[in-house]
């Protein structure tokens, strides 16, 4: 019964939710809404779960003085300070300590992490564009045409760039998307029919 009950729940909810896509009638849509509201309720409960996990893991690291424990202290400090400022001041007001920390500490840190992407793209491109063999050389030549076709100095290459992007690139992209679409449906069917059970920790 430990395995059968979850499988029956998955089958029933899977069939109802799939059906709700084809039945616009309000009675089925109400059932769908009911299931969706459960999803939201579980999501809210999960925030507490995450908070407990984060605190526990980092407290253990600090207590055991594992390598990098100082980062755990910073994490816990950040957690407490944001929780306290968030509870004491109204987070919807434009200027208070919570908003100050959010606007002038958190957002710049996010932006910094995102900016790293530019450097990583450069280092990844350097590796990818090495002309080691015929295929790699094709990638290199194509990349150069596409990059130059984007800027005024390579205006003459713009039509070739457009053709590369719209014909061979788009064909490959759509082939991948077609496989992903069918694979996704197959995966969903396998889960609903109980064929795929590994996510429950069972073969």
């Amino acid at each position: 019964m430990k395995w059968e009950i979850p499988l029956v729940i998955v089958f029933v909810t899977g069939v109802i939710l799939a059906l709700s896509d084809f039945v616009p009638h309000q009675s089925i849509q109400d059932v769908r809404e009911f299931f969706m509201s459960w999803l939201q309720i579980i999501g809210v409960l999960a925030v507490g779960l995450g908070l407990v996990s984060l605190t526990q893991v980092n407290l253990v690291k600090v207590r055991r003085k594992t390598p990098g424990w100082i980062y755990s202290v910073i994490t816990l400090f950040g957690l407490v300070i944001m929780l306290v400022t968030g509870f004491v001041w109204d987070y919807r007001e434009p200027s208070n300590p919570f908003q100050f920390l959010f606007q002038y500490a958190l957002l710049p840190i996010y932006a910094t992490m995102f900016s790293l992407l530019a450097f990583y793209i450069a280092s990844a491109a350097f590796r990818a564009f090495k002309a080691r063999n015929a295929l790699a050389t094709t990638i290199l030549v194509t990349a150069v045409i596409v990059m130059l076709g984007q800027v005024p100095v390579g205006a003459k290459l713009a039509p070739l760039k457009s053709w590369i992007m719209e014909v061979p690139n788009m064909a490959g992209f759509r082939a991948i998307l077609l496989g992903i679409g069918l694979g996704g449906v197959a995966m969903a069917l396998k889960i609903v029919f109980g064929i795929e059970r590994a996510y429950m920790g069972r073969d």
Partner: protein
Amino acid sequence: MAPTSGADPPAPPTDVRAEDSDDDAGHSITVRWSRSPDDGGGARTVTTYTVLRAESAAGPWEEVGEVPAGTTDYVDRARVEGGQVAHEVTNGTPYYYAVRASGPDGGRQAVADAPAIASAQWYHKGKTPILTVLLVFSALVLYFVRKARKHPEGIYVRPIAGMDAVDEAVGRATEMGRPILYVLGLGTAATISTIASYAILARVAKKVAQYQSRLIIPNYDPIVMAVAQETVRQAYTDAGRPDLYDEKDIFFVTHAQFAYVAAVNGIMLREKTATNFYLGKFYAESLILAETGNIAGSIQIAGTDEASQLPFFVTACDYTLIGEELYAASAYLAREPLLLGALKAQDVLKGLAMAWLLVGALLTSFGVNLLRRWISVQM
């Protein structure tokens, strides 16, 4: 040509008719008409069409909408503004409609012959192609699953290099005495690629338990974390090593994309992970993760159904599962007839889709739009 000002208002529209809107839960009526002779022709004085509604043929009429000249339909549907019902279309109530063509000198209206009644439908006709494909696919899955049960040896699965390397990657981490990092991505527990990733995680965890290595799973979503804990716990139990399972190695980090990346990168560099798995839903963080792992010298196996992130993984990782390979990986690792049968059905449907595309493209090129019309979906 600009409309000319005349003494008379424009002629009314003709052939006004109202009917229940298709494929919805009711509360909606579609009004159609033919353009006034003065719209685009005649005196060219029509600037707008105003749609009016009444609960009896004698009125009183209320304005329910306005559309610019040239338009020939309007959908009158219930509206909610600021949490209050601003406009209602009640199912089962007969409504009479009129359309007025207006210009600088006033307007004239025409009334629909019959009232319309909004009602909810039990079937969305516009989605028939999707339902057909789904039913054909389901039938194929069931057929091949049955066939695979009888003759499991008859199903060939092409090698997936990334999955062949799982043993090697876990073994290498064990020999080096370093942990393995498994990243489930930014999807929720309801995301199909995350669920596919769980299936692979279960098998990777089993191998990790057998090799007595260590598995670290930092999570972006608390529910994903809870499911991952259960999946790994069961895998360790199946492998006969429940004692090795440590719940603290599967933990929640943050629900902020780049803070999560920073944390995972820190784990890679501090713990010196020998093998990194990135399997699930990934966005802009994919390259930051994979490049850091590459710089750290880890073996990296990635897979996602987010097509725009695939080039980054291909560039920075040793093995990449491209799109559908992520979904197929579980069947490939398990070699279970049921899963292999579903995989075969998927390939057959893909073959049918390719044939459809090829024939459809050829027919459309010669002006025959039959196949294209059959497959067109109205949401």
